[in-house]
């Protein structure tokens, strides 16, 4: 893909259809709409500049890798404290950020419980549920975004969902009573 016109076509074919998925994932990573949009814009620009080296296989995985690296670089520049104390910094970010995934407007008691349970999970567990269940990524794609092995995605997902389930069990949820 060295010819400029071919590169432009490749960009149109491989990158543009993924914009909405990229924005969803960026929202999960940043938990802020404006920051997510900036992150995707940077990602698109980097993808455009790198398209001549892309072999056309697994464009979403390729783009998610660019998105992840761009996100890390932006955090390094803007939030150096993340590198020093990632857990504490992440906690502060979660509590400081206006969480757009609240239970506002959710009427069903069980739904409210599920959404609250998700919000109460530690960052690595909440993030993997958001990427797979909400953003619709495959295990491999979520692993790409988080830069962890697929097995780690699966085990985190299992633990996260188990914790949400445990919370439902505690409030007496019986799935068969809803049928």
């Amino acid at each position, binding site marked *: 893909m060295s010819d400029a016109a071919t590169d432009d076509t490749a*960009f149109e074919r491989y990158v543009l259809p993924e914009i*909405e998925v990229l924005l969803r994932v960026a929202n999960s990573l940043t938990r802020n709409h404006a920051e997510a*949009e900036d992150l995707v814009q940077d990602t698109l620009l980097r993808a455009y500049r790198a398209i001549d080296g892309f072999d056309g296989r697994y464009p979403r995985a390729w783009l998610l890798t660019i998105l992840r690296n761009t996100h890390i670089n932006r955090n390094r520049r803007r939030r150096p404290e993340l590198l020093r104390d990632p857990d504490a910094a992440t906690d502060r970010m979660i509590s400081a950020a206006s969480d757009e995934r609240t239970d506002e407007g959710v009427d069903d008691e069980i739904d409210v419980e*599920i*959404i609250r349970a998700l919000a109460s999970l530690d960052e690595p567990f909440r993030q993997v549920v958001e990427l797979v269940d*909400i953003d619709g990524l495959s*295990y491999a794609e979520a692993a790409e975004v988080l830069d962890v092995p697929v097995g780690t995605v699966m085990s985190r997902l299992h633990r996260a969902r188990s914790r949400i*389930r445990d919370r439902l069990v505690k409030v007496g949820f019986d799935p068969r009573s809803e049928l």
Partner: protein
Amino acid sequence: MRKLLGRTPPGGMSCHQVGEVLQQYLDGHIDADRARRIEAHLDECRRCGMEADTYERIKSTLVAHRPQVPAESIDRLREFGERLARGEEPTRP
């Protein structure tokens, strides 16, 4: 599970075996043959069936209340991407 001792478990899989792959099954990350065996187990085993129902409810709730990404953000990014695709490198808005 005492009553299952001495006979083939539903679907030819034990509760433990089903539990190990239940998440992959619910996410569609499992082959068709194994999925059929898991379904046979879930149909017959009340405990595992309820477990699967609970996880399905969790997933469907999360999908149903999926936050909307702002349409105007998608429009702006699409326009940005289309300008790149035309060979322009626009300045940031």
